[in-house]
């Protein structure tokens, strides 16, 4: 296996668990840029990411994956551009307990469409314990209509194995020869 030194991006709406997911799998203490929330986010949580999250995942001591998390609010969309530059893949986290997660999915896939021309995406659906619909099948059906077939998982963003399986799925779709 050749040496990998690569960058993947975690994105998705506010509260989907991007900061938590990076915290769960990073092998270094993650860099976070949280600020006290004063917008609608307050209804969901007290803090929100304003610039980026950063962590590192070491695979087998050979492959090093740099993990970047974006802010969720649209007013930070300039950070989405900055962070996605050079990214080899995108992990989209969707919060099933939000009012319209399908629309969230379409919004974020559209916002990252330039990156997705060259890079694959994997979708992780969080908070399915709070609301179990839409199911992963319904997400998949909607994406099939626009000819997209990304891996979609139900995950718990706090669980290292769950998040790691997302990252591994993403790396496999980049390089099927990769051994985790």
């Amino acid at each position, binding site marked *: 296996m050749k040496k990998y030194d690569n960058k993947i991006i975690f994105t998705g709406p506010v509260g989907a668990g991007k900061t938590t997911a990076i915290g769960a799998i990073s092998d270094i203490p993650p*860099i976070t*840029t*949280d*600020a*006290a*929330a*004063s*917008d609608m*986010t307050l209804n969901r949580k007290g803090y*929100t990411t*304003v*610039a*980026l999250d950063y962590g590192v995942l070491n695979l087998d001591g050979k492959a090093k994956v740099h993990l970047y998390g974006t*802010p969720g*609010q649209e*007013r*930070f969309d*300039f*950070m989405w551009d900055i962070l996605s530059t050079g990214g080899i893949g995108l992990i989209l986290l969707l919060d099933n307990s939000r009012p319209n997660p399908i629309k969230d999915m379409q919004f974020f896939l559209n916002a990252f469409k330039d990156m997705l021309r060259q890079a694959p995406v994997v979708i992780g659906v969080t908070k399915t314990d709070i609301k179990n619909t839409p199911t992963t099948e319904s997400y998949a059906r909607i994406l099939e209509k626009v000819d997209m077939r990304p891996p979609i998982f139900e995950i718990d963003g706090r669980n290292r194995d769950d998040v790691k399986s997302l990252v591994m799925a993403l790396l496999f779709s980049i390089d099927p020869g990769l051994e985790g």
Partner: protein
Amino acid sequence: MREQMLKSILSDLNGASADIEASAVISSDGLTMAAILPQDVDEDRVGAMAAAMLSLGERTARELARGDLEQVMVKGEYGYILMSHAGKDAVLTVIARKDSKLGLILLDAKRASKAISEIL
């Protein structure tokens, strides 16, 4: 009411020096609380950028053992952008001309930050 008081501080600040072109008070999560900005500038974007810069600056200062962040300064071809804390949860952003006397602007900004943090 609060916005009005903030605005009056900003207009004093903008009036204090001909070098200061615009200023804004922004919550630390990037929402504009009060602003006196040129027409063609989008408040929301300025707010989000200032919050991101300040937050990154904070992390950088801490990571490199420079203690608590006091300010972030950006210098472009046409002038300066100065961001500093105004109390714990707000950011004062000052936009100044390129040949500004920086010392004076820093002083005015410091004074305004103090007044703002007293209101919030």
